[in-house]
């Protein structure tokens, strides 16, 4: 029997916190920072997701648990906290560069594009 080559271990396994079952983002609140390439698992309401971080995720920031298409809601606390402004891949950093608020958009009302 040929000797089995040991599988390469992931760099590090880190955990993100998920507050509601239908959330599509998790929050990095572990004591070690998540680095690009780390294997990430989930704690909280969702415990069965494993993914690879596609970027560094600073403490308190969010990571996508599954793909979120441009125009789709970002769900945290089981509710929309904003809309994706770009296609987001599972493992991407989710923040102001790819999410916009739907509230208090005086800029849009000023342009006559009321967003509600």
């Amino acid at each position, binding site marked *: 029997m040929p000797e089995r080559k040991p599988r390469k271990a992931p760099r590090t396994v880190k955990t993100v*916190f998920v507050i509601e079952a239908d959330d599509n983002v998790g929050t990095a*609140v572990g004591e070690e920072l998540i680095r690009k390439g780390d294997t990430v698992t989930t*704690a909280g309401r969702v415990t069965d997701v494993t993914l690879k971080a596609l970027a560094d995720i600073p*403490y308190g920031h969010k990571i996508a648990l599954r793909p979120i298409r441009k125009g789709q809601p970002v769900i945290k606390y089981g*509710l929309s*906290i904003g809309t994706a402004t770009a296609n987001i891949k599972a493992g991407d950093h989710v*923040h102001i560069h790819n999410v*916009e*608020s739907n*509230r208090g958009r005086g800029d849009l009302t000023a342009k006559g594009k009321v967003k509600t």
Partner: protein
Amino acid sequence: MTEFYGYVRPDGSVGIRNHILILSGTVYANKLCAHVANLIWGAIAIEHPLGRTQVKPDLRMTRRFLSGTASNPNVGGVVVVDHFQELGCTAEDIAADIAPTGKPVMTVNIRRSGGLIAATEKATRYAMEIARQLSDQRRQPVPLSSLIFGMNCGTSDTTSGLASNPATGYCSDRIIAEGGRSIMAETTEWMGAEVWLTSKAVSQEVADKIMAGVADMEARALASGEDIRGSQPTGDNILGGLTTIEEKSMGACKKAGSSPIVDYLDIAMPPGKTPGLYVMYGPGHGAESISSIAAAGAQVLVFSTGGGHTVSHPIMPTIKVTGHRESWELMKDTMELDVSGILRGEITIEQGGQMIFDEVLATCNGRLTKSEILKDDNSFAIHRVGISI
């Protein structure tokens, strides 16, 4: 049925403390009140910079806060002191507001007493007589339904909405399930979470009142010439990972737990008799917010914080909880609970909520908060709705 040992007042309300309050009616009676409180065992002074030359709505707000605080069941008896006469907010006016509670109330006017030294003597004698009466009172077993539970958050960060706020909400649900009432204030932090909040309202009427409250607070912010939403989330919040105002407000509103909202209250007004969650109009200012909740009659408050806190009300024990391990290590001198295990997956939100519930119950039975032990009662503040003139 859960019970705790409390002081039953003549009106049937239940205190978890038995303080003698030396209540200053006006800024010019503050130090007299502080001196008397230093002389008398079990006395606490309430001092503040108001009670004079306020526009009428603002003066009425001051009276509401002072009378409400003295009427709180944690206060066993009151000495109210004023210096001359402020129409609409005299020591007699405040005493008349407190009278329906049936607790002993005495008034002292500095001028009519013949000056500061004579008034100090009079207030000290009154306080001593009340202290003798209160020392005869014993704690009795009462149902948990006697409790009005206050909730507030402050110096929030990403851990607040994920750990300490939902755990506080779980504790609130437990208390409501036993027939108690909870109050959540801070209207500023409902902005962006109104749809979720109003979905919890028991009626369209309550939902409409919540929406009107948010619109009013927003209008006040706009009247200042600053758009509150232009800076929400703040730069700090964004650095900490909060992306939108919706996310920030949703975190704050997690204190509401899963109970329906039975009514909306104006600031510092007592809730009705129906058990359940009440939301109260008020600012995000921590000391004003918890003082409004104490003036509404809450006997105990849980303050959920990310960064750690010293906030503590003079007569309403203020239990401080964080979900941030580093904040706990830095600020545990004035904090009771660390629920950061929720974020490490070591405990569930329910288990964290149970820790808070157990701490609330122990505090109701007489366990002192760290801030009470350290006499760090720093957080009495009156909300202002007008100017000094």
